[in-house]
């Protein structure tokens, strides 16, 4: 068995799956960093 994506998972599927969770998480982290910067003001 391998983890290669021959006949299995395509690269676009990986990008879609990671984007599906990564984009909302990145947005939330960016919001939190923006709020955290108030500590240094």
């Amino acid at each position: 068995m391998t983890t290669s994506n021959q006949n299995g998972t395509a690269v676009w599927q990986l990008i879609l799956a990671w984007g599906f969770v990564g984009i909302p998480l990145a947005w939330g982290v960016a919001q939190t960093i923006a709020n955290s910067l108030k500590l240094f003001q």
Partner: protein
Amino acid sequence: MGATAQTDSGGPFGFLARSHTIAKPGFSRWMVPPAALCVHLCIGQAYAFSVFNLPMTKLIGISQSAPNDWNLPELGWIFSIAIFFLGMSAAVFGRWVEEGGPRRAMFTAALCWSGGFILSAIGVYAHALWLIYIGYGVLGGCGLGIGYISPVSTLIKWFPDRPGMATGMAIMGFGGGAFIASPLSVWLMSRFSTATHVGVAETFIVLGVIYFIFMMVGSIIVRVPAPGWKPEGYTPPVQASKLITTSDVFVYDSLKTPQFWLIWWILCLNVTAGIGVLGQASAMSQEMFPGKVSPVAAAGFVGLMSLFNMGGRFFWASTSDYIGRKNTYFVFMVLGFLLYVAVPSTGAIGSVEAFVLCFLVIISMYGGGFATVPAYLKDMFGTRYVGAIHGLLLTAWSMAGIFGPVLVNYIREYNVTHGVPKAQAYNVTMYIMAGLLVIGFLCNLFIEAVHHRFHMQPESDGALATAAEAGAAMAARLTGKPA
């Protein structure tokens, strides 16, 4: 096993069966972390539930609380009940989750979690707090527990070479869920609020629908590895190393081992020390540095702590793959002890920077403790029932969730009422937290490999397999479909 076999037999929910989730050759294991994150990012909303507390005290009065409005202590029970049921459901349903496979568990978690929001929305409409206790607290809490353990155990099976990193990714999502939920909830409430209501019920409904969709996507893309699968280039150890077993321990047999209870106490003490200060960070920073830390800066400090809580989950769990689980917890206990003891000194010398640095490292280790423990259990008890054993262990979280805040709040109150200046009211608490970590250090010190008498024997493996086959055959006869 029988239940698993029946689900495997088909029927309307046959697609949820473990057998339908076995990965085909070529499936990339890197699809599984996003599936796990779909669930953990949703249930991580629990950390952001407090954004609803203030609006829910004005459901009748709208601009300010009316006499019939709920008060904060009453609303505080919603989160407490949810965390209690997280631990209880993880413990009770752990074996069901492990044997039924991740898709069935994630689907169930989605129903419970989203159902909890919908029931709570009805509770807000009807102004029935008990309905919210049952909705978000009991039903949502069960969704939390089942949703928390299922992806973690699946990831451990996909990443035998890097179990700490894999579980760190998922549990990082649990910490990060609040980052999305908090601003999203505030925005939704602002969109739905009118002159006559505050928009909490509508926000609950929208969140329930969004979370259901997200969690269903996770349950659809999740897969379990085929029997005998191993990562490319990975050679599993033939012989167990000193602290990493190659055998499995049955879920309930783990309760008979000292290792389970030692790890239970390690988690409980580490979480108690972290959770106590997490909830009080804003007030503590302002009271220890009067005039230096404004409420706005304190809110920024809390946000920064949340980031380190999330980042620590991935960093420490990944680090544990290299330095070992026992050594990682030694770092938590020793470094945590030194930092807790140093906190009063930062107040005495008036160094906000040193205070912030101490707490950021402490809170990263709080998150790291959560994220590293599944891999510690895998090292001790094997992969077969690690999810179920993890479920049992989460009762330590429920316990810490009660003791941590109580310890900090009551000791502070006691000090303030006995004339201790507010700036020094937390000193005793810090020393007590440091003491808890000394006990945790000793518990970790006593951990050694599980005795072989607790390992599952080939005969019992065979017996379990035979039982599963018999159950499947019975189900096939009943449904007329092949098992």
